[in-house]
């Protein structure tokens, strides 16, 4: 894992998160919060879980071990989710801008929400976060289709073709 890998993956992640949020925009409140039987219930629950994971890992990279799990009810609507996520992305961009290849190989120990201690290299953790978000973005596309909407794709193949898209900024 090197800086180039990380920069590529996080450029994709930022693009894909914005596209996903843009696809959710047409949902009304009932659709946004409707329990569709996934691990995280609703579209809102899946988005908030994905965002929480990005947040908790960023905190761990800073040497912290928060035990808090976001409650989807704390995010009243999509605008609230998007605003929080935008701040998170900005903080992470600053973190990435200061990274070095050597730093990516360093190990970080943290406690998860169950107070279990784990140690991984920073590079592996950063790869994991994008993988985790990609997995759930695939689910969000499926949930939107369950609700009868036509989401825009967020897979990497689309990013190949349209990496500079800006219309999805929120």
């Amino acid at each position: 894992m090197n800086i180039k890998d990380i920069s590529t993956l996080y450029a994709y992640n930022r693009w894909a998160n914005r596209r996903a949020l843009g696809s959710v925009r047409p949902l009304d409140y009932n659709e946004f919060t409707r329990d569709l039987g996934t691990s995280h219930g609703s579209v809102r629950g899946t988005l908030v879980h994905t965002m929480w994971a990005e947040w908790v890992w960023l905190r761990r990279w800073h040497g912290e071990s928060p035990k808090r799990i976001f409650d989807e009810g704390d995010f009243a609507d999509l605008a609230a989710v998007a605003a929080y996520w935008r701040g998170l992305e900005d903080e992470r961009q600053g973190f990435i801008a200061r990274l070095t290849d050597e730093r990516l190989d360093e190990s970080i120990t943290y406690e998860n929400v169950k107070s279990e201690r784990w140690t991984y290299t920073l590079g592996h953790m950063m790869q994991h976060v994008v993988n985790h978000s990609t997995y759930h973005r695939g689910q969000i596309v499926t949930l939107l289709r369950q609700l009868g909407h036509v989401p825009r794709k967020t897979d990497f193949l689309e990013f190949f073709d349209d990496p500079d898209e800006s219309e999805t900024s929120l």
Partner: protein
Amino acid sequence: MSEIDRIADQIASGYRDGAWPGVSVRDVLRSLSASEAAAHPVASCHSAWEIALHISFWHDAVRRRLGGDPVDYRDDEDWPAPAEPTAANWRAALDRMDTVHQTLVDTVRALDPEALERHSPGKSFTVYFMLHGVPQHDLYHGGQVVLLKKVSRSTSLPRSC
């Protein structure tokens, strides 16, 4: 570990063990019966079988692009039509997906490191960029198949509105 091996490991991991999200697209597809795989539990979504064929197409397409073929493709190649939904046909589709995947991983491991900076034939992106897309693509569709399986085995979840 070389950069080539690291990328090859990511491709293998994204397909076989889910690369930390923990759900392998290969395993979740193999957990489905032929009839489940052929079904469209969410009306406007591809079936799991179609997704398996799509993954096979793209693993093979990336391998061919590594060999210089630009791989211009039609929609029916991107999303091939499944065979008759028999257990034997489903097993054959899954086995082919494994074979195509392993061939891609082996091809990546044999790459000259300088190849990473070359452009994929006829494309604006590099080989390096293309290869990072493979595990992301598998994870994305893995997340979808997990949901299709849940809806398929539920009598209460919405299939479309």
